[in-house]
């Protein structure tokens, strides 16, 4: 049994998903034996979300036991989270640059220079990402950085998806960057980046 998340809804569940009632909450579970990995759990959660189901998703990397999912309904302020996240999803927004072609260096000095250039690209991506999300005026997560990219999640109301899509297209045209810089947007995902579940019991320990 795989726990996918929590919802207030008790009807119109996607096929393959069943509900376990726990007070005012419904725990969404799947008995599909092929769901073995974090990526499988993510795919199952995305299917539920695409089917229009509004729910608070578990972190895909965690295979939460049903006991813990039940416990969370008593020890965590799911109501506050629901008010914040119901009817919402997230876009993952990334600014990327092409990887440095001179990565294989011959000596220490050229390695240092390459490293400095990477750092410059990383800063450039981060600055561009900050400018773009500032224009959107929507809640975002902290930026994540890799060698050639900066990314974050943007919380979006489901019925606002098209407006945000259009805004991204407008911003991509508006922003000026190097030829190899691109704006990558994926979504709409369940709002994984905004679900912060810490039980009151654990927090007090």
């Amino acid at each position, binding site marked *: 049994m795989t726990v996918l998340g929590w919802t207030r809804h008790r009807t119109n569940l996607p096929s393959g998903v069943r509900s376990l009632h726990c007070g005012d909450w419904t725990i969404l579970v799947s008995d599909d034996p092929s769901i073995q990995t*974090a*990526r499988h759990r993510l795919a199952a959660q995305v299917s539920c979300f695409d089917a229009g189901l509004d729910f608070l998703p578990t972190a895909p990397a965690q295979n939460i036991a049903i*006991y813990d999912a039940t416990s969370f309904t008593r020890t965590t302020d799911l109501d506050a989270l629901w008010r914040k996240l119901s009817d919402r999803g997230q876009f993952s927004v990334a600014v990327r640059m092409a990887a440095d072609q001179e990565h294989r260096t011959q000596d220490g000095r050229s390695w240092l220079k390459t490293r400095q250039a990477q750092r410059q690209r990383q800063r450039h991506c981060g600055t561009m990402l900050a400018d773009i999300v500032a224009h959107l005026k929507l809640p975002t997560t902290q930026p994540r950085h890799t060698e050639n990219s900066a*990314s974050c999640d943007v919380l979006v109301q489901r019925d606002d998806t098209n407006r945000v899509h259009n805004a*991204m*297209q407008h911003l991509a045209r508006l922003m000026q*960057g190097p030829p190899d810089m691109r704006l990558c947007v994926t979504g709409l995902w369940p709002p994984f980046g905004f679900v912060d579940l810490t039980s009151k019991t654990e927090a007090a320990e």
Partner: protein
Amino acid sequence: MSLALEMATPQDAIRSSDTALVDVVDGLLRHGVVIRGELWLTVADVDLVFLGLDLLLASPDKMRPEGITR
């Protein structure tokens, strides 16, 4: 120059083998905080010493590739 815009649905990203989309999915699967620091010691515009620090802060559950199973 304007930025090239690439848009993809979650289904595209999950099925894709494109590096950028795989990175997005991996980002969703991993939860944690990464602190990254770099220190350069430079004298007369010559880089002498480089110190790099990557520190990952996450709960033990989140550090396991497939999460916890109880």
